[in-house]
């Protein structure tokens, strides 16, 4: 798809603005984004692939990656379902306080992740507002459930933010046609609305998952960062770096970076499919 917004020629001879603009773009991105990313791969493979593989397959590393994937999966599942429900309700109904609800759903984006983790501790911690009523065996904090809760909190608005605009711009005549043909609200939602949201749901899920996998600020507070118990991949990187085991940290960093590339490549290259008809 061409990004040429206007074919207007502004000069008689060679136009240097275009190559200059692109060069400035790359030059700014280089030290800020491109070089840091490249460093991970350059450093990670500098001692050879065997060393890289050994770091990657260490039991603690494998556990950390698996824990990240599992907790992110559940957080994504919840947020996509709730995001879809919230988007549907807010797109379909007007009610007093509707705008406030939309703002509340979006607030976690603005809250620092450390604050989010701290808030969860204050609520669910052993001496928290609600946590104090839980028995010792049923404590949520410093367990994988705490990680899921933290991921839910920080990624709360993401799927909703992708699905809501699609629902708002969806023609209401589709639902009306379905109703006049005999469909109940559930049948209309299942057969008509949901298929049209396919792209938005997948896009929202990928975004939520990618963000969850990389979550650090809230997770380090609520998980306790216990190796082979509550240590996710980002916490593993942090712990190994602090211990001076840079190669071990680097191996997981490469995996997370590649994972993010994969997700965002899908979001970019499949965007035509992801967009609704």
């Amino acid at each position, binding site marked *: 798809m061409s990004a040429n917004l206007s074919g207007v020629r502004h000069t008689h001879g060679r136009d240097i603005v275009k190559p200059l603009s692109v060069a400035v773009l790359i030059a700014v991105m280089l030290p800020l984004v491109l070089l840091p990313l490249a460093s991970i791969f350059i450093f990670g493979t500098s001692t050879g692939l065997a060393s890289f593989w050994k770091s990657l397959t260490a039991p603690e590393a494998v556990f950390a990656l698996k824990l990240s994937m599992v907790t992110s999966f559940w957080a994504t599942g919840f947020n996509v379902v709730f995001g879809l429900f919230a988007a549907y309700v807010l797109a379909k109904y007007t009610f007093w306080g509707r705008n406030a609800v939309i703002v509340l759903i979006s607030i976690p984006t603005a809250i620092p992740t450390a604050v989010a983790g701290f808030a969860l501790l204050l609520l669910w911690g052993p001496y928290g507002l609600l946590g104090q009523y839980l028995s010792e065996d049923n404590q949520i904090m410093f367990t994988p459930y705490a990680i899921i809760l933290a991921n839910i909190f920080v990624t709360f608005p993401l799927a909703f933010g992708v699905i809501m605009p699609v629902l708002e711009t969806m023609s209401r005549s589709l639902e009306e046609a379905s109703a006049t043909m*005999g469909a109940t609200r559930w049948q209309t939602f299942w057969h008509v609305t949901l298929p049209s949201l396919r792209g938005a749901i997948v896009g929202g899920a990928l975004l939520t998952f990618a963000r969850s996998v990389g979550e650090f600020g809230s997770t380090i507070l609520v998980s306790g960062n216990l190796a082979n118990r509550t240590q996710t991949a980002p916490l593993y990187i942090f712990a190994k770096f602090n211990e001076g085991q840079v190669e071990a940290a680097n191996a997981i960093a490469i995996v997370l970076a590649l994972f993010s590339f994969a997700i965002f490549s899908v979001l970019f290259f499949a965007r035509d499919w992801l967009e609704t008809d």
Partner: protein
Amino acid sequence: MIESRSNNDFAVSIRDITKRFGETTVLEDINFDVAEDEIVVLLGASGSGKTTILRIISGLEMPGAGQIILHGKDVTNIPARIRGTGVIFQSYALFPKMNVAQNIAFGLKLRRKPKADIKQTIDRLVELVHLEEHRTKYPSQLSGGQQQRVAIARALAYEPEVLLFDEPFGALDAQIRTKLRREIRTLLKEIKVPSIFITHDQEEALELGDRIAVLNAGRIEQIGTPFEVYTKPSTEYVATFLGAANLLDGNIRNGKFESREITLEIDDEYEFKDGQPVKLVLRPEDIFLRKPENLMQHYQKLTEGVIEELSFVGAFERVGVRLNMPDNAPIVVTRPKTETAAFPLQPGREVTVGVVRFRILPDLARTREHVQRAAS
């Protein structure tokens, strides 16, 4: 307007429908019926309330008052999904993730029809709407006309009580529109399903409808066959909305229409009082600029006039004529090609203006003025 037959004689009966949105009355005392294999067109400008009527009949809106009766059953308070109407939306509203066959099958699947029946119905309907080669295509792969046919087939699949068309040709270009509305009318006459169309296009209304209901500001001004509403408009609005019309103020004197030098004999059907202010409605095609050779019985001379402008409009010529009367805008006359060739005109030429057909309507505004003046 309401025939003295019971509700059971009609497929659709609309009784005393009124609808308000806040302080605004969008529909007031709407009454009409649709017979079993009849096509009724609701014709009106944007904002006249025609879409609201359609939405009320289908159950997508609730009326403030009144009744909707389908085949003798009061469905006013029945939800849209069990009312059994088939709606063809202006945007067609085809489900984008279903192909043609799946769209058509949707209503039948909701009704849990056996698979064999569904397949048979799909086969019959794609043949009926001439889309056999397109049954596996998705809406985005179809033209506007094809999408519309799928929308019709989809609505017909579950045998609706009535078909409701919401400006179905609005999104199509002029040539396709003309072709399609003839095809749709033929199809509807073939399947004999009562249908209600809404449109703002008067040509469409005249071609499609067995009867036309002209709406203005939420009220039905007149309902009748295309011939009736065109040749015998009962209000100034109907006269000017449905076709072009020249209007001349005048009064009834001694059973005749008089306006300055113009005197016209009028039919016995009119029951005006002597001195009553009226309006003369003249269709451009009923005005002649020379006395026709094959004299028509009802030809009457209007007055003399001068040609002001001429324009060629394909099938006919449009002529602007200034009548020899003070305070009158030019009237518009249309002449067929045969007349144009036999009797060419130029601007500035003096002509004798005559009419073969006209309509007289009460001039309510001037009547009110006279009454107020008389009272004061």
